[in-house]
């Protein structure tokens, strides 16, 4: 298990009901982490529609997670 810091934006923040949390996870990749979090929060967006940033850089969903990583799930936003 590793601890990672997760931050949510826009519709994900609304769905999660919080903007950030520290999660102890066994997920090896960002993709696995999102699937795990989606079982706890009522996310309505498929992963294919989101981007993930790890330590302030866009990353592939298959990127391996490390302890203390700052992970941000970013949905697209359209309002104007």
């Amino acid at each position, binding site marked *: 298990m590793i601890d990672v810091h997760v931050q949510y934006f826009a*519709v994900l923040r609304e769905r999660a009901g919080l903007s950030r949390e520290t999660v102890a996870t066994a997920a090896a990749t960002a993709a696995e982490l999102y699937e795990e979090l989606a079982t706890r929060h009522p996310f309505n967006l498929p992963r294919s529609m989101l981007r993930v940033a790890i330590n302030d850089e866009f990353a592939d969903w298959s990127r391996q997670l490390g302890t203390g990583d700052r992970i941000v799930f970013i949905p*697209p936003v359209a309002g*104007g």
Partner: protein
Amino acid sequence: MRAFAFSSEPLDPQRHRAELADPASGGYASFEGWVRDHNEGRRVERLEYEAFEALAIKEGERIVADAVARFGVSRAACVHRVGSLGIGDLAVWVGVSSAHRGEAFAACRYIIDEVKHRVPIWKKEHYTDGDSGWVNCERCAAAAHDHDHAHLPVGSGRDFEHDYSRQVALPEVGAAGQAKLAAASVLVVGAGGLGVPVLQYLVAAGVGRIGILDGDHVEASNLHRQPLYGIADIGRAKAEAAAERLAALNRDAQVDAIAAHATRENIDELVAGYDLVVECTDNFRAKFLVNDAVVRAGTPAVFASVHQYEGQLQVYRPEPAWPCLRCLWPAAPRDGLVGNCAEAGVLGPVPATLGAMQAMQALQLILGLHAGSGPVLVMVDLLTLETRRVSARRDPDCSHVPGAAADAPDAAPIELEFGTLAAAVEAGLELVDIREAWECDLDPPSASTLLHLPLSDLVNGRAQFPAQGRYLVICAHGVRSLSLTEHLRSLGQPEVYSLRGGLAALRCRGAQ
């Protein structure tokens, strides 16, 4: 020298003028009022002026001080004669010195108009027939005064020269930068919450030509976050209302009002007419349409979007490392899935902040002020005041050439235009209203509507769109309906159409 004075001696304009000399002034404008030989059809021989001096001097000083403050001139003064004057004598003198001539002329005009209107001075006219009469200048002014501009905004004089000194003072801008701005052209797509500050700041900064592409009309629900518009603009084409307001801000800018939506048919030609595009729409369909057009044209662009208290900003530069919108969002998102301002709600300063950031980026692109940062997606949370920059790279798998289904030419038109919903029913279409329940409470669906299926229910799987039949999908502005229709077409449903412009367009057409 007092700002306002009376003199019982003949006035000496040369002496008064010398007292306005100022090293920061580049010009001087003056007005001289002379005694003429006729008034209202009667021959005048001479005049006597009397004033209630204590009151008149205070009022006169207020007028001159107002003029200096309103027009930003260096110095101004007014001297009025009292006593007996002959034909051709100088009755009143106004002088203004200023950095630029426009303000000097405008302030001079303002002072004489206001003095004639407000300062308690009486004039006794002696006529050639031996008769004489007192004329209260205030009342004569009120009856037929020449006062056409005094209540208009500063600079409404045709010769007003826009003052860019505060931005030219920046070492990175200077006269060369100002010339770049004057030579630049920018297309602003969407004149809403984001577009309003973009337009205001670009026009104010002296960008030479600005296109406003927006096919919507001003609605009452826009004003809280789009304060460029006023109550009287409700129902007007946004592009036209915006162009009119902006013309009052800076006449240096040529503003092209394009009262149309961005479409596959018009976007390439429009983008080709400008150096830079600022994308300020509220829907993914338009954002990707604009993205694909700027990528094709090799035109830099500034994108932004907001959701409730948050915003995202991305700059696209036509350079190898810079990602386009599709690089970041390869699965072009569907409208309706992540909310827009109507569904999710928004506070005005959120799009205003992001719009101001877009304007800043646009100016930087024009001026070549690159802060050295590589491409990023900037995320701003206006509630927590957190800003996050996420480094972004061009996706090697993104062709940078649009290939998504939404861009393939359609065999059948996807949008249809009708004058009334009844006409659509007559054309054999069944109506499906996809607005949210609260929208229908405010504006109930037409009696001829077959189905009410809120888009949120369709997206969340709580409702299914009927598979068989010919349908016209209806929403408030035709954005969500078009997005859903494109989605249904991509799933192989051929006979589904979107009402172009939505119910709002129907109302406008009905009103014409």
